């Protein structure tokens, strides 16, 4: 549980990186990259998040146990996204076999 003191210049550097990346996000928003819009924005966001976790939250010097819990957090986020995509990604595929639910197969009501 030793307390690591990071030099101030490192914090300043990380802060500047975050600012530059924020500016990049804003800048990219004015350029239409088509389907890459989301990908670029998310990539920048992930880099920023990793910077914060590694330096500001001192995970660089944390114990293995802390790192396991952080990894679990990312794994859980992955589960959330992956399983949601199993729904969103398969909605375009026909949900019923050929002929089901169409008007021709409706049984006429008994008289």
């Amino acid at each position, binding site marked *: 549980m030793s307390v690591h003191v990071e030099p101030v210049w490192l914090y300043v550097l990380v802060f500047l990186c975050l600012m530059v990346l924020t500016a990049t996000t804003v800048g990219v928003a004015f350029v239409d990259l088509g389907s890459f819009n989301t990908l670029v924005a998310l990539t920048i966001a992930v880099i920023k998040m990793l910077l914060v976790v590694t330096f500001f939250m001192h995970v660089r010097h944390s114990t293995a*146990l802390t790192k396991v*819990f952080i990894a*679990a*957090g990312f794994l*859980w986020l992955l*589960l*959330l996204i992956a*399983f*949601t995509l*199993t*729904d*969103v*990604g*398969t*909605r375009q*595929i026909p*949900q019923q076999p050929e002929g089901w639910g169409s008007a021709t197969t409706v049984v006429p009501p008994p008289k």
Partner: protein
Amino acid sequence: MSAALAEAPPETRVHYLNANYGIKSWLLTTDHKRIALLYLASITLMFFVGGAMAVMMRIHLIDPAGALVHPDTYNKLFTMHGVMMIFFFLIPSIPAVLGNFLVPIMVGAKDLAFPRINLLSWYIFIIGASLTLYAMVSGGVDTGWTFYTPYSTTYANSQVMATALGVFVSGFSSILTGLNFIVTIHKMRAPGLTWFRMPLFLWAIYATSIIQVLGTPVVAIAIFLIGLERLFHVGIFDPAVGGDPILFQHLFWFYSHPAVYIMILPGMGVISEIITCFSRKKIFGYHFVAFSSMAIAVISFLVWGHHMFVTGMSVYAALIFSVLSFLVAIPSAIKVFNWTATLYQGSISYEAPMLYALGFIGLFTMGGLTGLFLASLATDVHLNGTYFIVAHFHYIMVGGAVMAYLGGIHFWWPKISGRMFPDTWARLAAAIVFIGFNLTFFPQFMLGYLGMPRRYATYPAEFQVLNVMSSAGASILGLGYMIPLIYLFWSIRYGPVAPANPWRAKGLEWQTSSPPPTQNFEVPPVVTEEAYAYGPPGSGREGAHD
């Protein structure tokens, strides 16, 4: 060790209850035992508020046309009942009350890892609960406890934001409690208390804490997004502005299915403690029971889609979620079989906590097995949205979680209060709760199977007999809950003084006096044996002290 401890009246020695007096000594306490009592008082209030709403609903449903309230009011009743009971009673119940009281004592520590964060969690809980109570008295909310979009974001005119904010805030209390338990169990175990010597209650609480820490932020995000869309019309769930209403259900159930395990897993831990004590046996298959808690914690995050089979989710995703939902049955069944095997050839006695534990096993099994009907795609299409669902989850949450909570409260009451409760009354109440519960909810299985939809204020006349049975059961159940409230209060003053270990149970909490001193142990304990080292009668190992 325990034999040397005083069994003199609690008045004659200093313990956590009489160490200091006055409102301030409670509201500013960092003693985990006092914070547990603060939680106990708060959630008991919420339980009876939520219970009163259930009573009104059941009175209303005595008549097919609705006997008591306007249909709009009925919508608010079931919504507020769900919100109160789930977020403000069941989720904090065992972790925040029994967990807070027992986790540090069971690991042999003086307190939790972060005592002030523990107190903070209670204040956050109170803020959340106050917001929700404010929403209730200022008009109520009618979205259902699930806050489904687009109704909650676009159409509902009731107090959606106040209620949602209350739930959002109280989530942080849950996260902080879970965090505290995880760190405490990792870092503060007494010498000799290895992971596989821990009482199974601690394993259950540990697994629960992981769900709380990893799941709760997601429901907070979901609620936050509702606020964004409702107040600022940001398109997240509304298809008209590029949103997806089903996305809300994904986010909501990603937390809210595991939340069922926040409610039931600690209960399973309580049952493991009670069953071993009152059958005087070591738990059957310790490692399996411990790991099944962890398995439940992980698998519970992979099954949320079973709430969405009929709400527009892709059938291909539904197939995956259906298969995974069946998987959860395995660790749950492991627990039930292992408790039953523990009973086998034990010297069983039927004290009040044991009655609740045995009731739990039966009712949880019924609740679990009817869950399989709902995990199957074909039967779910018929049963979803009917009273079958209502009956199913009440068998888990009331028949399971509340029975375990009451069993645990009775089991540890002598430790918490230093007094014994009246045994006859306690057994009677346990029996009344069991009968009242089944009379309330078994008819609802039949109603649902016959097709009566949930959340309706009226119903066809042919369903009346079963509804009246259910309402009659609810009044018996309500009586069953009132009786312990009365005699537990009574026992604080008039109950016989409790010895350090009235049940001759194993476990560190029984080796300190009742009630424990503020620092929990006079001498820091050292653990030298497995959990549940109960021996056969006459072996000299029947209990910690005879």
